[in-house]
């Protein structure tokens, strides 16, 4: 299962946001997308999901033009975890997760016992069993994020696109979510995520892409791509990528350099 963008142009009707982006997401890997505010990450994601029409280039899901596939077929293969948000009606956590099964249901069908079991499994996997009957409107932002990931799990798609899954989370919840993402990849799911924290690339990503002004600056493994120079080019600030000893081995981290370079 692969999602491939070839020289993809994207944007909103009448307004181009990005041009010529080529990247590929395969099952079992975590591809992180870094980019400053306004670089077009969310627009790119929406285009990759087929929610916005592409403006040029090719977008292939398993070799087939994504635009030609029916909505539910795309949803069976690619799931979307938006940034946590509210709903107007107090659906329970279980009902929200159950909505992830929609792509597998006939037009007139209600979720079956099997669908409810899958939803409960997804809830358990995200450690939310205690909250299953709580109203989605009453839980915290971090819990909502986990619920939305559980919903994507219930959707049982091989590829998962996450828009800043750690935004608005406290430090502990950020790490918990990243751990889950690593576990998802180990289970064979391909995850594409965007983040504003370059350190997270070292924590969970197998590959990383840098997006600036709607263009890809680089795409490759973290070791190839993440350097002092590339991060300075991406964000316009001085950063040192350092290697530190932590836990059982060495790891790389990003250190901001204030007032030293100029």
């Amino acid at each position: 299962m692969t999602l491939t963008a070839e020289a993809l142009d994207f944007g909103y009707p009448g307004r181009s946001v990005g041009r010529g982006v080529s990247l590929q997401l395969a099952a079992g890997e975590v591809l992180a997308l870094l980019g400053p505010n306004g670089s077009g990450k969310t627009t790119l994601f929406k285009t990759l999901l087929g929610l916005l029409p592409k403006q040029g280039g090719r977008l292939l899901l398993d070799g087939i033009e994504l635009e030609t596939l029916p909505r539910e077929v795309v949803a069976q293969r690619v799931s979307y975890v938006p940034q946590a948000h509210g709903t107007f009606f107090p659906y329970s956590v279980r009902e929200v997760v159950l909505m992830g099964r929609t792509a597998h249901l006939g037009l007139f069908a209600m979720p079956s016992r099997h669908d409810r079991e899958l939803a409960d499994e997804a809830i358990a996997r995200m450690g939310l069993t205690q909250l299953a009957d709580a109203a989605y409107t009453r839980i915290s932002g971090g819990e909502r994020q986990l619920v939305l990931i559980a919903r994507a799990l219930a959707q049982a798609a091989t590829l998962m696109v996450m828009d800043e899954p750690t935004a608005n989370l406290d430090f502990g919840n950020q790490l918990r979510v990243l751990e889950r993402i690593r576990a998802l990849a180990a289970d064979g799911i391909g995850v594409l995520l965007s983040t504003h924290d370059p350190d997270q690339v070292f924590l969970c990503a197998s590959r990383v892409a840098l997006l600036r002004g709607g263009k890809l600056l680089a795409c490759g493994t973290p070791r190839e791509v993440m350097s002092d120079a590339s991060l300075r080019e991406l964000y316009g600030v001085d950063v040192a990528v350092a290697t530190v000893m932590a836990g059982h081995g060495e790891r790389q981290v990003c250190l901001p350099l204030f007032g030293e370079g100029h």
Partner: protein
Amino acid sequence: MSFSEASRGRISLLVGLGVITVALLSALAFAAGRYPVAAGDVLRVLWSWLGGAPHGLDPAVETVVLQIRGPRVLSALLVGAALAAAGAAYQNLFRNPLVSPDILGVSAGAAVGAVLGIFLSLGVVLIQGMAFAGGLLAVALVYVTACAVRGHDPLLVLVLAGVVLGSLLGACVALLKYLADPYNQLPAITFWLLGSLASVNPADLRLAAPLIIIGLIPLWLLRWRINVLALDDEEARALGVATGRVRLAVIVCATLMTSAAVAIAGVVGWIGLVIPHFARLLSGPDFSRLLPLSVLLGAGFLVAVDTLARVLADVEIPLGVLTAFVGTPLFLWQLATARRVWQ
């Protein structure tokens, strides 16, 4: 799975209670009025009408029960159910608990049709036909306008187009009222705009009932998809819902039901806004439970209010007035006690 079984047990109980309440209110509506009929006599007449033993009562009783109150009770049930179901569907569709079935201009369009019919001194059937067509046309116009505007949130454009067209149609009604004959036409127009079931006859029912049921069936069939519509549009599409098509289906069904209801009853406010709230309070937001409860509550509420409209005073009180007088305190009480629905 104890949760869903328990909640299914609860909803069965609620629906059962609702059916019993609606049946009792309907029996009361049959019995009460200027010509009171004992509840037992109502049952005997209905039983003989259904093919049972002859009732052996005064024929006047049969006329009152079958010819006068029968159509009226049935139409109150149908109109109440239709408005509440359409309101529940629209509140999910527009992700907003403040939405009523009027939001896309169906009542305003129907009002222009009916008022024009009265202004041109047309017959009752034509007036109803024009009201029905006016409602459909107004919503079609709003929908086409919204589709022509691209690059914005489709729901926002729909609501804006509905509000703008609604106020234009309101101006048309005002103009027709201004031009109408103040002695013959104006009272008829005012009466129609306030809503009433006083002149409903069996023929009206034979036309409106199928339309309302035809609108209700797809809403029930699409109940899970309508749940998902309560999410953000892009999210719902990412979950595999063809939102544009489901939304169109909901709008067509709700418009059909509302137009048919307004054509026979005039503009009856409040039900489409308030009843889904109460239903949601009892059933939770899941549309597969919300829809049956809204239908029952809407039917029961209107049959009760229509009975009040008949018995409270010597002259009939217009329905639109009474639903507001009864609905507002209920709504405020609910606002004060049930904050969770609003979060």
